[in-house]
């Protein structure tokens, strides 16, 4: 029996471009849906790959100043995950900080984002990688 095997490693993400869902008047709330891609094939992980419940973890540098805590998540049955980034209030926001978010899938770092917390909510910028 000859079986050709290709090892795939979690490598990078693509994300949706959600609209602002903050309904309290000040700030932003965006739920980003991520697809996971692997190296060396550059293919998206599919629901049929059987990787649902794979842990997705996040870390922040520097630590989020107000002591905000972050939730972990998992790959769903479509091999996607959702990451909600929100700062939303019925009165003007005062918090100001810029942090780098690192997202890892099963321990593999696959994305960094810059999150800028400001009076307008959270400005989200992807720093890749993109391939």
């Amino acid at each position: 029996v000859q079986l050709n095997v290709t090892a795939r490693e979690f490598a990078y993400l693509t994300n949706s471009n959600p609209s602002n869902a903050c309904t309290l008047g000040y700030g932003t709330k965006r739920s980003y849906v991520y697809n996971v891609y692997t190296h060396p094939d550059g293919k998206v992980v599919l629901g049929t790959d059987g990787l649902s419940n794979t842990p997705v973890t996040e870390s922040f540098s520097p630590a989020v100043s107000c002591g905000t805590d972050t939730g972990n998540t998992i790959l769903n049955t479509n091999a996607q995950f959702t990451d909600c980034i929100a700062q939303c209030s019925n009165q003007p926001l005062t918090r100001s900080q810029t942090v780098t978010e690192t997202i890892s899938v099963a321990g593999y770092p696959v994305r960094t984002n810059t999150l800028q917390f400001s009076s307008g909510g959270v400005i989200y910028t992807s720093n890749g990688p993109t391939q």
Partner: protein
Amino acid sequence: MKLIRNTWSTLVLLVLSLWSLGQTRSAPSPAAPPLSQRIQHFELTDAILREGIIQLASNRIAGLHLGFEEIQRDNISDNPRNGGVQFSIQLENKTIHNILDALCEADARYTWSSDGISINIYPRATSTDSAYLLNRTLEHISFENVPDPDEALTPIAQQLRDEQIGYTQTGGDVAYAKPWTASFQNITVRQLINRIAEHIGPQSLWIWQGGKDERMFTFEREGLKTYRQPRGE
């Protein structure tokens, strides 16, 4: 022997580093009510209360719904460790009830109580303060097709226009399985937040934190991860 040639067979190799449970090990018994369930080992070193609550939630005990109201800081950007009580505890084979008692003894500014299936930990000084947001009563409130706990806060803000109400979330996903429609009568804000969080799933955690001018709710379906800032930063 049959020759199998797969031109593009794939094998996904994973290193599944499971959630770190810190230094806590639990042995939950599904049949027991959450307060009676035992944690085999619960240890905190130089911790503040919020870290203890989050560690408790990380045990993933089905039916455990926790709500934590942090004493307000001067400013939301202030380090929660500054001015807080730091403590170390090590508990073996204790119930959730025992652990909550120990935590609120370690930081006596707080107390805890039960509301149905939810457990609330809150500043002792607010217990009889009817002006405190979480103690205020709503005569009637309805939700219609709210997709997640955050959106359920909007009807509260519409009723309590003199209060600052907001939420913050950094990661994770707390969307309900299906949009939720419900109505409640004569319910305190704390009770209502409990119901909102319980609807997330079999386990939930909410935290109300921030400064005097900006207080934010954060919801999570399981344990949160908290970032410890050194005192003084």
